[in-house]
């Protein structure tokens, strides 16, 4: 076998690489069964990308797992999956007919078929370093020496955008941010240069710049090693940029399939059309609503444990008083590992660096930024889920100001009731041994809201609002799809009707239609009940739709903050510009311009006024007016920046 998996295209007859024929998968559980996939057929051509799109919970991940024959033992599987390894000689093999975990299938898994799992957070063992876990695949399938393996891994880690691959090699998964873990996952899947890559939502946790790099990387590999790909994603932009063929599934069945051109230019099925229509655009009007496939009416007060805010003057415009004020917050993590006995000097990671901003009552503040720049850390600090090294956070709730970082007893209790969070990682934030009913109802129980009956009502109302069946209430989190779990997390955060809701990537795992449904729900609640959001997302279109103001974070600092129109339309900081340039559009005529995205290998040096020249204290926020601030050298005059910006824009037009 050719260890690189490389095969001259011209020699091989171009058979389908993988054909799934009449596949069906169902999960029996006490009191019923879930048919995750029904009579499903799909093929993947060698060297081509087949995108699998569809609603959350429609069986995409199950399909991905099934073709590798690693679906959990409780699944009942029918049909066959024929794999025709271009490097192999014996022609198509039915993967499902091979002995479970037998030698044959093992030599294919990880080696000829790589898999990127949807949930990078929990897909790594917490006891082993990233390097160790990646290396394992190499160890099993190649005969490289340890040094060669190390070299190859470091190279791969660099390729997926880690600035310091050597450091990451020795880190544990829980030390990485969501996006970093996802990249590690990608590295792991690619390390053996498989003939087929199953990429289940490979870029959800990545900011657009890195996403663009990853897309580029995948494209490169695809052409260099003739790698085929099954791309499971919600992001039609990514599909448009990567896919050759598209398969649209809905509840386990193929709705529409065809070459990417056909699908984008000539959608036929009502489901696909609805999907296309639900995509948020940058040029949407502020009052324009997203159009989900099914619109579910929302009655906030019925649904949440909160009275309608009676004297809400004008929920449309953010009220001027400050709900949360963040001042000079910093947080660093110390790697205590250096040297076995801890004798080396500890290495510090400055995750949040002197961050200050305010969140107004009733507004929604978008927070965007590079993967690993400290967004999650910051949001956890705001929740007092982590302690800050320095700085202060004041929460001005209805019951008066609370010093978040030092609140005790009653104050803390208020805080816990008024501020809620949707976790970036839906899997691990749900107690695995509680049913959905208990999970969603838990905050109500903790804060003793209403009687049992009322709680049941709220829980059920929330479940239907997030688009889950009532039967889901009695199931455990592990039996849901990624998107479903994410929605459960949202429902739980909403249950108490908090004053401030921190959403860390709340819709990253949702297809556009459910996403629209959820975003609308959040928007409605904001309008109706005056909720305030801190909205962290990589999806700029979503931010554009949801946020009143946007803060852009880079390497632990807020580099630019301002009203959403300003940031989206005339950004000043080069990073913001770069971000905007890297957004993939679900439009075949607007392919990504990889040149502007640049390489991830080295942290870029910004242009003169924005670079700290290795003296972080030399930077300060320059006020550009209308609440627009940008991080630049102290010496720089704000007016200059604005003037520069204006001229640049004129130039472009």
């Amino acid at each position, binding site marked *: 076998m050719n260890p690189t998996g490389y095969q001259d295209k011209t020699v091989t007859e171009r058979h389908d690489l993988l054909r799934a024929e009449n596949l069906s998968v169902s999960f029996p559980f006490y009191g019923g069964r879930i048919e995750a996939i029904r009579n499903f057929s799909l093929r993947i051509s060698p060297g081509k990308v087949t995108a699998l799109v569809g609603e959350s919970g429609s069986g995409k991940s199950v399909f991905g797992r099934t073709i590798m024959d690693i679906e959990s033992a409780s699944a009942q599987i029918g049909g066959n999956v024929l794999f025709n390894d271009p490097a192999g000689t014996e022609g198509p093999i039915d993967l499902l007919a091979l002995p479970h975990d037998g030698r044959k299938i093992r030599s294919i898994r990880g080696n000829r078929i790589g898999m990127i799992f949807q949930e990078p957070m929990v897909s790594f063992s917490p006891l082993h370093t990233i390097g160790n876990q990646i290396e*394992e695949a190499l160890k099993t399938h190649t005969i490289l020496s340890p040094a060669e393996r190390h070299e190859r891994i470091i190279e791969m880690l660099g390729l997926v955008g880690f600035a310091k691959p050597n450091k990451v090699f020795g880190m544990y998964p829980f030390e990485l941010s969501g996006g970093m873990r996802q990249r590690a996952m990608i590295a792991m899947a690619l390390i053996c240069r498989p003939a087929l890559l199953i990429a289940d939502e490979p870029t959800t946790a990545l900011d657009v710049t890195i996403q663009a790099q990853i897309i580029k990387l995948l494209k490169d590999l695809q052409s260099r090693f003739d790698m085929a790909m099954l791309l499971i994603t919600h992001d039609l932009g990514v599909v448009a940029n990567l896919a050759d063929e598209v398969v649209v599934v809905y509840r386990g069945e193929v709705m529409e399939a065809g070459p990417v051109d056909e699908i984008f230019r000539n959608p036929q099925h009502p489901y696909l059309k609805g999907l296309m229509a639900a995509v948020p655009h940058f040029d949407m009007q502020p009052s324009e609503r997203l159009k989900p496939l099914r619109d579910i009416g929302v009655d906030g007060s019925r649904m949440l444990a909160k009275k309608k805010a009676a004297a809400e003057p004008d929920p449309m415009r953010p009220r001027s008083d400050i709900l949360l004020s963040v001042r000079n917050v910093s947080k660093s993590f110390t790697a205590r590992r250096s040297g076995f006995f801890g004798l080396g000097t500890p290495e510090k990671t400055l995750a949040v660096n002197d961050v200050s901003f305010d969140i107004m009552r009733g507004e929604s503040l978008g927070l965007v930024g590079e993967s690993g720049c400290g967004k999650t850390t910051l949001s956890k600090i705001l929740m007092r889920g982590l302690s800050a090294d320095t700085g202060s956070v004041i929460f001005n709730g209805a019951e008066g100001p609370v010093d978040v970082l030092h609140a005790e007893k009653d104050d803390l209790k208020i805080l816990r009731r008024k501020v809620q969070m949707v976790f970036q990682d839906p899997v691990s934030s749900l107690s695995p041994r509680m049913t959905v009913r208990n999970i969603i109802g838990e905050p109500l129980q903790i804060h003793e809201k209403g009687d049992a009956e009322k709680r049941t009502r709220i829980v059920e109302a929330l479940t239907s609002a997030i688009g889950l069946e009532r039967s889901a209430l009695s199931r455990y989190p*592990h039996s849901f799809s990624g998107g479903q779990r994410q929605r459960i997390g949202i429902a739980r955060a909403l249950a108490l009707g908090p004053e401030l809701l921190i959403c860390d990537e709340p819709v990253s795992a949702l297809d556009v239609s459910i996403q629209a449904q959820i975003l609308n729900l959040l928007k409605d609640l904001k309008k109706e009940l005056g909720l305030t959001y801190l909205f962290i997302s990589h999806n700029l279109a979503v931010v554009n739709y949801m946020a009143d103001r946007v803060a852009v974070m880079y390497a632990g600092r807020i580099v630019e903050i301002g009203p959403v129109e300003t940031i989206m339309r005339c950004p000043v900081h080069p990073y913001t510009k770069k971000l905007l340039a890297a957004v993939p559009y679900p439009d075949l005529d607007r392919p990504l311009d990889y040149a502007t995205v640049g390489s991830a290998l080295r942290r870029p040096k910004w242009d003169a006024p924005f670079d700290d020249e290795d003296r972080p204290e030399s930077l300060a926020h320059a006020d550009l007016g209308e609440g627009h601030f940008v991080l630049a050298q102290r010496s720089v005059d704000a007016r200059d920046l604005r003037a520069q910006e204006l001229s640049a824009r004129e130039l472009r037009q």
Partner: protein
Amino acid sequence: MLRYILWRILVMIPTLLLISMLVFTIIELPPGDYFESYIEELRAIGEKADLQEIEELRARYGYDKPIPIRYLNWVGGMLVGDFGYSFEYRLPVSEVVGDRLWLTVLVSFVTIALTWIIAFPIGVYSATRQYSWGDYGLTLFGLIGIAVPNFIFALILMYFANMWFGTTIGHLMDQKYLNQPMSWDKFWSILEHLWIPVIIIGTAGTASMVRRLRANLLDELQKQYVMTARAKGLHPMKVLVKYPLRMSLNFFISDIGSILPSIISGAEITAVVLSLETTGPMLIKALQSQDMYLAGSFLMFLAFLTVIGVLVSDIALALFDPRIRLKGGATK
């Protein structure tokens, strides 16, 4: 890490001090003292004790002094390596123990090793083949081992070993080798006798280890990272050993501290029944006859082993789970 270890070792000092107080109290707690029980024992068989010698011993070992002084003398002595005097044997404690210590160590280690060697594969087997005949069979077998009291088990095994293989009853070796230097015959004789106590002491531990390992493994087998590992094409055994097994070792490691003491105390009754030349029977005898320095030194020795064990367990736990090592102290 080194800082942590040093600090942990420092913490051991007050712990040991506390233990020594407790040990002393425990030995002093039963009414009377060695001399009284000695006299009574002699009287029970109609003999007279050498009262005069006893009076002298009493005075020499400060039995007329208040308890705190005696405690200080004892602890002070131990610090300089003087473990006191065994009234029963009328010899310094350090001379009494003799061979017993290493035989105890031998029995304990063979038992522990065997427990592990047997328990791990069976535990893994039971977890991966839950509710197979093998799982049931091994469970049944192990639980019977737990359910039959050690002393009965010991008697039965011993009786039948004697009936069928002609193994001499009890002891760790044929008695003709007792005072002899090590030889092949003696070694063989030890082997011939060793299996009985090892089985008796080991079964309960093995069975409970199997059951707990199985329970912990069953929890881990469902985790997503197991699937990741399978997706890499690893051998199922490798997957199991590297990920879930290691994960479920947590309970096991946290227990290291008490393994040795529990093996040793679990072995005491067996050792008495089988009349093994280990420290157990001697300890029990010393406790019952209130030969306090002998008992006290034994107990302190055991305590010392425990404290070391806990230290090892703590360090191992930190080394083993990076979450504990790296995040344990992270302020929330």
